[in-house]
């Protein structure tokens, strides 16, 4: 089933793509990038939008595992905030 999270995560980036991340005290190794896409931010919905350079959100859907069975995780990177979030997971 799909679960939706908004937890901040620490992500290790190698060659411009996530290689592993730490979440809830465990380290996950990325085995495979399943999909990668970007969207612009909904700058017009923000209270004080920065319409000069709103930046983008980068999504990485990866297959990763801490130990045992791998799951599918969706990591989101916000370029303006320079921050990673675990946005969804399927297990």
């Amino acid at each position, binding site marked *: 089933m799909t679960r939706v999270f908004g937890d901040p995560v620490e992500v290790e980036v190698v060659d411009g793509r996530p290689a592993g991340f730490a979440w809830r005290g465990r380290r996950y190794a990325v085995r495979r990038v399943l999909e990668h896409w970007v969207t612009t931010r909904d700058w017009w919905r923000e209270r004080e939008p920065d*319409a000069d350079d709103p930046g983008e959100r980068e999504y990485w859907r990866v297959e990763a595992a801490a130990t045992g069975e791998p799951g599918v995780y969706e990591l989101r990177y916000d370029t303006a905030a320079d921050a990673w979030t675990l946005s969804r997971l399927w297990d």
Partner: protein
Amino acid sequence: MHLHVASAYSARYGAAAPRALAARAAELGMRTLALTDRDGLYGAVRHVQACQAAGIAPVLGADLALADPAPHEHAPPGGAQGGSGRRDPGRRVVVLAEGKTGWASLCRLVTAAHAAGERGKPWIDPGMVAERPAGLVVLLGPASDVGRAVAARDRVRATALLEAWRATGAEIVIEIVNHHGQGDGPRAARMLALAREVGVPAVLGNGVRYLEAADHPVAQVLDVARKLVPLHRRHLDDQTGHAYLKSADEMRRSAELAVGPDEAEALLRATQSLSDRCVLDPARDLGMDRAHLPDTGPEPHGQLLARCLQGLRRRGVENRPEYEARLSHELDIIGRKGFASYFLTVADAAALVRDLGIRCAIRGSGAGSLVNYLLGIGDLDPLGHDLVMERFLADSRTGLPDIDLDVESARRLEAYEALFQRFGTDATACVSMMETYRARSAIRDVGGAMGLPPQEIDAIAKAFPHIRARQIRAALTDLPELRRSNLNNAQLGVIFKIAERLDGLPRHIAMHPCGVLLSNPTLRDRTPVEQSAAGFPMSQFDKEDVEAMGLLKLDVIGVRMQSTLAHAVAEIERTTGEQVDLEAVPRDDEPTFEMIRTARTLGCFQIESPGQRELVAKLLPRDLSDLVVDISLFRPGPVGSDMVNPYLDSRHERRRAVYPHPDLEPVLRESQGVVVWHEQVLRVLDVMTGCGLSDAEGMRRRMSSEEGLRKVGTWFRERASARGYDDATVERVWRTLAAFGAFGFCKAHAASFALPTYQSAWLKRHHTAAFFAGVLTHDPGMYPKRVILDDARHFGVPILPLDVNRSSALWQVEDGGIRVALAEVRGISDVEVERIVERRPYASLGDFWRRAHASRPTVERLVLAGGFDALYRDTPVGRRDLLCRVGALDRASSVRPSAGLVTGQLPLGDDLATPEPGMLEDVPLGELPPMAPSEIVEAELDILGMDVSRHVISFYGDLLRALGAVPARELPDREKGEEVLVAGVKVATQTPAVRSGQRVIFATLDDATGPVDLTFFESVQDRCAATVFGSWLLLARGKVHKPGFRAASLTATECWDLAVLDEAWREGGISAVRRLMAGSGPSRGRPIGRRMTYSSGFAVSPYADVGHAGPAVRRPPPARLWHASQGSSGPTSP
């Protein structure tokens, strides 16, 4: 290397100017760049020029929508059946042109696309490409029908669609795009797999819409503005911000993510080689190196010569050596240029217009050519006015010369139709123009995108003057009328910021008001054509584009004054039988000039503005040449470099004319030693350097840039010194020329304007009523009609009220007076007017109701504006009674048919026999109180837009007397510098360029005794600007200024809304008014905006010459104008 690029010329889609795109491509090391605007080739010529400037090679194409494959599925229930006339704006292909053949095919395909769809919604299908596939390359990308089928994983359909495209005969190429959206990569991979499988070449594209990633908010706002929806992710075409002009490396990386490194490299190479192959040569392929004139038969030069010789005889200047020498000089230049067909064509066109009985005058530099005079293109003898040909046509000039014809505005389209008929629809088209975003339109679109309520958007947009979008935030701090508003908050801040980024982007295409292309049947191979709103074929190129493409553009300008003159002449003939030939009227009529000298010139061409009335009062013109000088002096340049006062001083012998050198006296004598005209610059350069007029014209044109000015300066000093002029003289002359530089005026232009100026003044002086009928009908000037009406009263012309039995469609002369026209009634339709006139006379309101068949609101307005007063004169029936009866008539006529249906009978045709259906109801007549004079004027202002029965200001007479306000008529009797109060209806506001570079507000009030001109300097605008722009009735305090001999104006220090003061007066008497007036507050005199200063020392305010903030002043505001309260207020004379 980019093959799929939309510039800002894809209206409300692209966000980058062609020049910026080409410059960036060059910066990124690309050798070529394509421009493929949506739905047309609007930016093509600019792109070619931009590429030339950037040193890269241009590729051209168009991004065209496809026909909707299943229109019946989408058609509204009950809508039209069938597959034609609909498009799917989301499904598109790019069509590129290869070589000259491809360009012609592309132009014709775009034209066909527009002919296929409804206006503004062009589409194509493979069948249309198949009609003329030569040289076309079709790119099928993710938005194409093939791409959509691939995305839907419908391989069978994708293959079939691809085959349909391959069957067209055009070259078919798959376009691979990865915008990094969700699923983009896998879709691109499947698309490539399809191409490889069926053996179709594939290239990389990026569907570019803007220059860099940070521009994507602009594209997103354009997406929703185009669709008229608020910003929401589901409405956005651009979801990722990746539709920017990426470098080759970025393109490779995007491709690698989708299809792997090897295929990415192969795609990149294929892209490069296709774009190299599609490079177009401006001369060879686009024909930009030569003119494409209409075919005028064999030996055009011989024909031209013969017609000019005829012209010499016809104009009675045969055997005059100076004319013969000038003619052979001009014909030499025309011969060297190969322009004989051009002149024959224009002569043909002018004759065609005149043969229709349409007034037609030449304007601009073309009036300087004897050939134009002899061919009958213009009616001004250039030798008589000392005009030179070179300003118009010289060896040193490139491109086709410009001939502008002024025709009657009301008959302009008639002239167009004649031209289209004569030259053939294939060889003719109108010129287009791009309407671009300015402050108000940008605020409207961005405000709508951000979801602001429409009324709020309207109020915000109208608070701004008509400035450029990029000035919005500067204006908020610069302009006192905006500083005092509450527009400075964070929410609006974002809107303003984005609105500024829309500055200058094309918004929609429109028909240029005057340009007509006359060419030969290859025209449709050279320009795409779509239909204008008025139904004319219209080129997608604008006036600069068509010039670059070597197409002959004739400017046929609709001029309201020409219609005015025609109407006046027709009225003279209708009422007196006298046939006035304005062209033959002696041009030295003393009474006419006497009237001009007293500045009673409202309604006259060019000399009615406050500034011009002041100038004619100072200059005191005695003949037509003086009018030429007057018109030329009233320009920013002469005002800015202070040429006006030295000229006036010499003219009135307060100072001797000073000539920089005796050799220049013949050149400058007419303008008292002052350089006024371009023609004089040419002559001065020629006299002092011996360069000849042709080279002099070349030099003059170079002087418009700072760098050119420097170079010409060096050249001038060398050549003049070499010819023995001393250094001091050379310096002095050069300084004058340099200061004059960019601002001068073309004397030929001034001379061609002076003619209608004189003609209008002559009519005003000798056929006053007919003149006012013309001015009121065609509204040629800057003032609202009510001002003209008041001027007519001052000239002793009675204003005859609206009368359904006497008023005609237009203003007419009647017994020496003028009768209000039916067309002035708000909301009346042409059909109604026609029927009313056709079926009169009417015996009563009921008779009118039955036979004129006007709508109820129209009849009510006719009643309220007094249209039936004459029928009920000497009866107790008033307008209120009649209004009541209109309601009864309406009820009676709408009830009877249905009553007939109830009884199962057809309504009988005996309605006409019923004497007064209104009488069926019990409407007693003569019992309602008559309308008060104030109510009558209020109704007139509402319905006719002007106060016909009496002047609005008359209702404020008591207050103004109590305040001691001075009537306009008495202002000249006051002492210079005396402080006075004046009041009136605001009839004009202007912020023209003035010497100091201040934003000065000039406002004109009208108080029934004449106009009062007010000047508000920056020092008082803090407290005055908002009131001046926001009020219709004003009271102002200021000091009397006496610029001329009889003229007087006011340098204003304070002003108030008269309606507000009037309210205070009614409530609290004069003391309340005085309290209110005392509270107008201080004004910190800070400068408004940063001036731009030219090298001549001439400074210009960034807010000069822009339309003012707030609503237009031509019609009164819809609100009630004054309180007609508590039984008050009949008119009181002021």
